[in-house]
């Protein structure tokens, strides 16, 4: 009893697929859906942590707060603050929790005593773009340069470029803020190449003109360069290790045996597969990058979220601190979602398991 050969589609032999999927890149909804669900859970956890932290404090936070504000808060604001810090003994814990969520949905994050009683949301909104610009550019640059460098080093396996690995790793162990301080001392105070701090010259009106933009760029250069140099080591090392693993695979040998030029094998075959775990670790490293950028802003007096957090910490402005934490968590989560989407698009295995 032999099977009728003519009815067997040779491309389907050995698979359980009923139709061969060719070409189209399908969106793996279930994978993304699972990730979004997880991030929603994380956001909930962060908000709940934020809710509970002031309640761990000994003593009445609001009274101390009020004393610091020197009587500039209205009674309604005081009640709102009590709600936010959970010291309103007239309502139960659960009600306070629900009220907290209500406040959040209305965009009300409280009043910032260290910023002239302005609403926390507004204060953060004015500082956020600076941080996003700095973090965004620096991270993308560091990732790209580091990954390319790591790919080349991995390809050459023991060439002269290998010496870059211990150098970049050493630079990575140096604390961000210290590197920033040294760079200011050297490149700004001593050599005068870059300005020492802030996002633009004091007293200048922000506007969309060439003068302002060039100031922004020159002021952002040193902090960005510091972040890039400090973080590049991780990308280089990770990419190089993945390249070594990938280059041992048989399909690389097949590609070379087919006669493909080295450059094509390096970039279209090896690097493309080695970069996938990098994207995953990119999402994880985000939290770390955010931390580093915050400190960088403190060092360079860059008017972003980091500087805001520093001032809030020193002034014990709890409302602002909590608001910043929430905004940061949300930003990190959104970035993670984007990274997951990128990963899902790039890795065909994720797409195909949904088939």
């Amino acid at each position, binding site marked *: *009893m032999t099977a009728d050969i003519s009815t067997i589609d040779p491309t389907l032999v050995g698979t359980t697929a009923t139709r061969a999927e060719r070409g189209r890149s399908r969106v793996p909804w*279930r994978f993304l859906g699972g990730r979004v669900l997880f991030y929603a859970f994380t956001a909930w956890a962060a908000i709940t942590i934020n809710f509970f932290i002031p309640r761990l404090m000994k003593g009445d936070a609001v009274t101390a707060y009020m004393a610091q504000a020197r009587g500039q808060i209205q009674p309604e604001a005081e009640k709102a603050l009590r709600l936010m810090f959970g010291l309103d003994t007239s309502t139960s814990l659960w009600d306070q929790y629900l009220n907290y969520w209500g406040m959040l949905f209305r965009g009300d994050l409280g009043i910032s005593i260290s910023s002239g009683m302005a609403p926390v949301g507004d204060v953060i909104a004015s500082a956020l773009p600076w941080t996003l610009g700095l973090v965004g550019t620096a991270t993308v640059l560091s990732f790209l340069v580091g990954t390319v460098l790591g790919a080349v080093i991995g390809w050459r396996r023991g060439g002269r470029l290998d010496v870059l690995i211990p150098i970049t790793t050493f630079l990575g162990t140096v604390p961000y803020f210290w590197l920033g301080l040294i760079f200011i001392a050297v490149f700004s105070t001593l050599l005068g190449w870059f300005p020492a701090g802030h996002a633009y010259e004091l007293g200048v009106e922000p506007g969309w003109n060439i003068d302002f933009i060039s100031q922004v760029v020159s002021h952002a250069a040193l902090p960005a360069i510091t972040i890039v140099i400090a973080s590049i080591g991780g990308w280089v090392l990770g990419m190089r290790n993945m390249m070594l693993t990938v280059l041992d695979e048989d399909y690389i040998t097949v590609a070379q045996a087919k006669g493909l030029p080295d450059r094509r094998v390096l970039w279209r075959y090896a690097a493309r597969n080695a970069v996938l775990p990098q994207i995953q670790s990119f999402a994880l490293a985000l939290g770390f990058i955010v931390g580093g950028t915050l400190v960088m802003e403190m060092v360079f007096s860059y008017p972003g979220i980091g500087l805001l957090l520093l001032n809030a910490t020193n002034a014990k402005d709890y409302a602002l601190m909590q608001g910043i934490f929430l905004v940061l968590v949300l930003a990190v989560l959104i970035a993670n979602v984007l990274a997951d989407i990128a990963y899902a698009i790039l890795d065909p295995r994720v797409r195909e*398991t*949904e088939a």
Partner: protein
Amino acid sequence: MTTLEFSHVTKIYNVRGSGQLKALDDVSFTLRSHQTIGLVGQSGSGKSTIAKILTQLEVPTHGEVRLDGAPIPRRGAGLRSYRQKLRMVFQDPFASLNPSHTIRHHIERPLRLDHVVGRQDVDAEVRRLLERVRLEPDAVMERRPHELSGGQRQRVAIARALASRPALLVADEPVSMLDVSIRLGVLNLLADLQREEGLGVLYITHDLATARHFSDEIIVLNQGRVVERGPADDVILRPRDPYTRELRAASPDPEEFFRNRTTQTSGGAR
């Protein structure tokens, strides 16, 4: 005399995303002491699932397994007593031993767990077991698995299985990952042990030739269902089911090869 009844067992796995997989479909057989059953089938036929159910690493979806008439308890002293009576030899000699521990540790554990001998006799018993599987105890006991060859490791695995003095042995493709030249040695060892200890052995394999060599009865499994069973010679030499015939046709028979050659060289005269 111990009897194991595998009775109308069906096993269904829920696979995330693509529904259900029926690994076994109404499989039944009986394994007794002093008897070897060969369970034959290709990859994916459900052989390993049977092994997992027998060692209580999986539970049947329908049907049950009975030892001496009583169903297998799920926990407690009854389960331990069952485990002591039925032991398994795994397929992969490289993975079935813990790389961090010595051979002595591997054989001592079942002895201690089941209190087979008194504490002062454990060392002597380990040596005795190693000698039974024809390994030199002093050379092997303090070594770690990666220092031994595949054949030696499989012998250690057999010794470990025999430690608790079981009545029944499940051998899940015990030689398929060994070099061809040493397979016969290990199989013969198993046959000798089976005879000397009066074990009931379930020999799981995809290799018809060794199944015939080694077993009294053969059961053929295809996609989770029993398609044929009977005395070994009957099933191999006079297969009735079309799948069994395909299996037989697929395995090379050296005698046939030489028969064909001699007819050719003698000019086609038959």
